[in-house]
């Protein structure tokens, strides 16, 4: 039973007795707030972070443009949230597991996922690790410890608790970070995940990107509370709220969270206050549910600009470097995109592999029947037809259609 004290007055607590402040280090002008301390972050690490932020932004802009041109079926941007995602990732060990929602490509960029790798997934070609089976932006990388994205929201949150429990048993000193939106945090899986992590003392960091919207639903229709952070009290879990557009605050908070998680096997909740500057996805038009004015106000809080100013102040970056980097990244995006578009689709057999570790006789039977059918109508299935006989189709790019999904 609880050990709290008694009271004899029937007083209700109203739910906001305790307010959780927002941790901020860097002003929008790129200067430290009075009393704020910068995390230990050397020039190389800062440049690696900044580089990843720019690369993410460039990739997002270009690919959204490509989607608008009809080259790509679908796209989602990280725009506005680069500091949250990349700041957190940079504070981890590169071998810590990342379980993302879908808007965290910045983490992959930071860890070194190449534009080629991005493009192969986006175009679902034969080099896509996911074998062209999922929609664009469902990246995954085993070598970079980045779990393949899954569209159902919040399912990754209890999975992260389980993954981290396994890491704890393995004793290698790794932890798991799981990213999710403030919308996804309404799912039952969120509650399950945080409660189990607290009970079983699991080294997991729950990183909530509170970007104000879940598609069209503003956070005020998502919860009545002051954000997601106060939920930590319900689980007796360490919690911090940070300015998600402040790279130094995010970095420092996540470093500390990792320490608590790994050294004490205690889960931590981080709520990063940020804003989704772009549309929800290429299928969305935010003008139907929010104002330009609101968007503009947030555009001024651009996390990349803020970091850029700080880098300038440190003497770690200048305009020329910026220009050169932007140009080379743009070029690289276009080149890798062209290459990816031309690559053939995954072979027909990939329809039935990986359902199980081994193709079952029933599935082999279904595949054989499908092949026979396609042989009868090869022109009706140009993608499938070209890969009927995997040996023959190598390098034969002419038959591929425009390459999008």
């Amino acid at each position, binding site marked *: 039973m609880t050990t709290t004290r008694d009271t004899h007055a029937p007083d209700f607590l109203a739910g906001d007795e305790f307010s959780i402040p927002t941790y901020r280090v860097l002003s929008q002008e790129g200067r430290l707030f009075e009393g704020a301390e910068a995390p230990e972050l050397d020039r190389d690490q800062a440049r690696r972070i900044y580089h990843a932020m720019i690369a993410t932004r460039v990739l997002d802009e270009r690919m959204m443009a490509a989607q608008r041109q009809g080259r790509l079926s679908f796209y989602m941007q990280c725009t506005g949230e680069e500091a949250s995602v990349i700041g957190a990732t940079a504070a981890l060990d590169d071998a810590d597991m990342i379980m993302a929602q879908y808007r965290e490509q910045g983490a992959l960029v930071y860890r070194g996922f190449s534009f080629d790798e991005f493009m192969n997934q986006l175009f679902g070609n034969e080099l896509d690790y996911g074998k062209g*089976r*999922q929609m664009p932006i469902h990246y995954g990388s085993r070598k970079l410890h980045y779990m393949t994205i899954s*569209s159902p929201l919040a399912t990754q949150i209890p999975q992260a608790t389980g993954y981290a429990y396994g890491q704890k048993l393995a004793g290698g000193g790794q932890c798991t970070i799981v990213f999710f939106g403030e919308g996804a945090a309404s*799912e039952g899986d969120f509650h399950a995940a945080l409660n189990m992590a607290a009970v079983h003392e699991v080294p997991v960091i729950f990183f909530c990107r509170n970007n104000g919207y879940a*598609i069209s*639903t503003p956070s005020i229709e998502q919860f009545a509370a002051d954000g997601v952070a106060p939920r930590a009290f319900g689980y007796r879990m360490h919690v911090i709220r940070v300015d998600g557009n402040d790279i130094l605050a995010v970095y420092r908070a996540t470093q500390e969270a990792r320490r608590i998680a790994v050294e004490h096997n205690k889960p931590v909740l981080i709520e990063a206050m940020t804003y989704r500057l772009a549309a929800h996805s290429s299928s*969305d038009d935010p003008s139907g549910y929010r104002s330009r004015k609101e968007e503009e106000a947030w555009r001024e809080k651009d996390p990349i600009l803020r970091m850029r100013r700080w880098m300038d102040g440190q003497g770690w970056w200048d305009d020329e470097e910026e220009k050169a980097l932007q140009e080379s990244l743009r070029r690289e995006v276009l080149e890798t995109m062209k290459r990816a578009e031309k690559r053939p689709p*995954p072979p027909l057999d990939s329809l039935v592999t990986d359902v199980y570790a081994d193709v079952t006789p*029933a599935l082999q039977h*279904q595949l054989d029947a499908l092949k026979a059918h396609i042989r009868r109508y090869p022109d009706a299935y140009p993608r499938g037809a070209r890969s009927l006989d995997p040996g023959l189709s190598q390098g034969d790019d002419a038959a591929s259609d425009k390459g999008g999904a």
Partner: protein
Amino acid sequence: MPTMNMLQAINNALDIAMAEDEKVLCFGEDVGGFGGVFRATSHLQEKYGRARCFNTPLVEQGIIGFANGLAAQGSVPVAEIQFADYIFPAFDQIVNETAKFRYRSGDLFNVGGLTIRAPYGGGISGGHYHSQSPEAYFAHTPGLKVVVPRNPYEAKGLLLAAIRDPDPVLFFEPKRLYRAATGEVPEEDYQLPIGEAEVTKEGTDVTLVGWGAQMEVIERAVELAEKEGISCEVIDLRSILPWDEDSVAESVLKTGRLVVTHEAPRTGGFAGEIAAAIQDRCFLYLESPIMRVTGLDTPFPLTLEKEYLPDHLKIFEAIRESVNY
């Protein structure tokens, strides 16, 4: 008669239902001010107020739990699940609660007022999680009704029937047809019967059975078959729970052949139920095995979606095989 696409027909049905009965409520993720990600609930909040058409937090199990409670109270909730692929967090509320509410209470309480709408199906480059056809999961659940319209006219009439039906109804909307299918739809209120199949084309050689978006695919296959002189009878089941076994049996007794098609994976799909029931009813009249043309037994793919889908060519081949058996 005005021409509407399927979304307009659905929106129109919701509008009529809400105007007529103030107990009708529409809610779900992004359903309120925005009108739903497909805009099926456009303008309903403007017209009927935030209390009757609203956004919910992002939690499907909560949406259906809430809807069950509302229906038990006597309201008439029309809950939207944004994609049928995301109905599974609500599976317990649907299968253990919605379906059993009346039975377990001896009809002291029921959730008959409940309708659950969800866009389903492939053909939109949606991959595993924006393409599933989960109707068979629910068709194995006594207490539910499962309805799937094939065009705008059917969508309006069946949705109005579903909302007013005394039992809870799952209403799966073929999202591929949301804008692609247009047709004449009466402005007035009308209902189409739940539990009765429709023979959309008469024929003598083989019976084709399907529902929802697959009806259009059947039509294309039938065109090919008729060119080869095969006379096809086509049946739209319209609801798969309860399903109109009599109409299918009657047709098969005449044609002696049956092809059933759905997008969902073959194993455990609803075509199996139909085949099992019809071979029993029509055993001595069957001239060839009942054929199933379905998705493969894999998660729904993306790049190779065209190959995966049970398209008109595959159905056509099945018709040929059935007739030439």
